[in-house]
């Protein structure tokens, strides 16, 4: 999922100007997104000489069955018009989404990101992981579709040949864009104020050792995905077996026909008409390869997250050992 190491330096970072974007996203999830629901919103900002700056955001209301007549587009238009009056940048530069244990690679995400990126080349999707953040470190990642994947989406050619032609593997579906937070001087003053006034001690969640439940959950999701993947593989294999069987049958049929024809010729009878073979043996539907790609991508993300998590925990365990060693 992440771009290879050698190309990280080529990926330009995207700037988050001002802390209100981060804080608003955190708040939105906290208030409206309890449980495993996904909260979404729009990112606003501007593109400055091929560098992306995100300056504000606003949330999308949750979809409920009661307001089926709720017009999302209208909400967006109104919001942007109003924001324009107060001089907030009203250029749609991307969108954000919260995720549950890191599972966000889906067809819906791909489609939405494609439509955004089609309009504005630099747009990103910000994935906010609230559960990981609650464990101690703000988990906000920005992703963009690689140009190769954009090509495929444009052609809408998701078959195996199309994917092979563009040589898209699960590793180069998305490229991660590093985020840099930029604060103005006034906001820095505000932060100093908060530091002085706030009586909330900084939580040392990061150093807590008891995070095995999180690991369990992540592994659970990984296993589910691997199950999906193997089902997919079974489907593909059945398909390929069917196709090869069909090939054989076709072959046999043609041979028999030829044999019969030669026999008939030798007996002086007119040969049998050539029948349309393809109508007789309808080729089975090839299974869509895009899903496999998405599942592989998702599995990859899970693996990355789990690895990061284990490396953190190993570090913490060694620290605990040092502490004990000192005592005894």
């Amino acid at each position: 999922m992440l771009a290879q190491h050698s190309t990280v330096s080529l990926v330009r970072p995207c700037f988050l100007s001002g802390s209100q974007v981060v804080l608003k996203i955190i708040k939105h999830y906290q208030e409206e997104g309890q449980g495993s629901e996904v909260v979404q919103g729009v990112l606003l900002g501007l593109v400055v000489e091929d560098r992306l700056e995100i300056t504000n955001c606003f949330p999308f209301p949750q979809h409920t069955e009661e307001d089926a007549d709720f017009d999302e587009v209208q909400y967006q238009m109104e919001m942007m018009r109003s924001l324009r009056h107060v001089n907030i940048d009203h250029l749609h530069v991307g969108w954000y989404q919260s995720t549950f244990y890191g599972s966000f690679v889906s067809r819906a995400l791909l489609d939405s990101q494609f439509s955004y990126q089609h309009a504005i080349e630099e747009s990103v999707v910000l994935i906010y992981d609230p559960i990981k953040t609650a464990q101690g470190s703000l988990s906000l990642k920005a992703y963009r579709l690689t140009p190769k994947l954009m090509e495929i989406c444009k052609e809408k050619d998701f078959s195996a040949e199309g994917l092979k032609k563009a040589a898209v593997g699960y590793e180069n579906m998305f490229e991660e864009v590093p985020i840099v937070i930029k604060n103005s001087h006034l906001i820095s003053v505000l932060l100093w104020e908060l530091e002085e006034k706030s009586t909330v001690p900084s939580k040392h969640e990061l150093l807590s050792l008891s995070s095995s439940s999180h690991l369990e959950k992540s592994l659970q999701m990984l296993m589910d995905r691997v199950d999906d993947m193997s089902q997919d593989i079974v489907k593909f294999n059945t398909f390929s077996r069917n196709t090869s069987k069909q090939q054989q049958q076709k072959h046999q049929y043609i041979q028999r026909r030829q044999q019969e024809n030669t026999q008939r010729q030798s007996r002086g009878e007119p040969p049998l008409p050539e029948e349309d073979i393809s109508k007789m043996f309808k080729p089975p539907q090839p299974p869509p390869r895009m899903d496999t790609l998405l599942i592989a991508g998702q599995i990859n993300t899970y693996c990355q997250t789990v690895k990061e998590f284990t490396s953190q925990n190993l570090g913490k365990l060694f620290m605990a050992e040092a502490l004990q060693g000192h005592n005894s």
Partner: protein
Amino acid sequence: MSVYGPVVKIHPVVVASIVDSYERRNEGASRVIGTLLGTIDKHSVEVTNCFSVPHNESEDEVAVDMEFAKNMYELHRKVSPSEVIIGWYATGYDITEHSVLIHEYYSREAQNPIHLTVDTALQSGKMSVRAYLSAPMGVPGKTVGVMFTPLSVKYVYYDTECIGIELLQKTRTSPSRTNGLTSDLTQVAGSAAQTQEMLSTVLAYIEDVLAGKVTADNSVGRYLMDLVDKVPMIPAEDFETMLNSNINDLLMVTYLTNLTQTQIALNEKLSPFLPTRPSPYPSSFILFKLLMPKA
């Protein structure tokens, strides 16, 4: 008419938005105003959101775009239906006569609105955030006026907000006021370094007390006792076994995830064999089943 106790709880996202709208104000406007949204409790008010409202202010008159305010409130209501208008804010240090007029307008929207001032011009040397309630005063029947009584302001955070703020604090210290989001191991290292710093401060204090430079404080001593006691006394072998089993778990998980990643990479490489040619029984499937035996 409910009267609030003298505490107003503010989330930092509100003040950050206010500062941002102040930075984007129109030419010639000396201050910005906007609506505060939040929830009212029996004894306190919690401000969780805000949006700015365009307005024009001159020497003798003030015009506020009320249509806009109403619209924005409706839009915000769609996202978080539990938030209500609880007051308004203005940047700047003083309360002017215009504020009284605006406050009156807001009294129509909400019961007993709160007025918040954020001193972005740093007139008093720091950015002070103050809250006021209005109360009528004067001689009834003759000259009546409005007095703004100050309330105390407290910052509250959600847990995740704490962590977000911690990260943002780091931008204060970097010269270009920027900060990237670091990888996980560096964050643990950072936290450990912080703890180390705190420990060295405590150590320095203890040294001073022992050398007699600072008088010993009993309560501090008790805290220190607590601190030292918190390190559990576990016999060495038990701790070894615990540590080893934990490390083994983590290593196993790392091994499995690496395996999975290799597996999907392999699958990727092997699957482009299109079924137009008679393919051998797909080896990737066998490999997968062998290496990932499922019950």
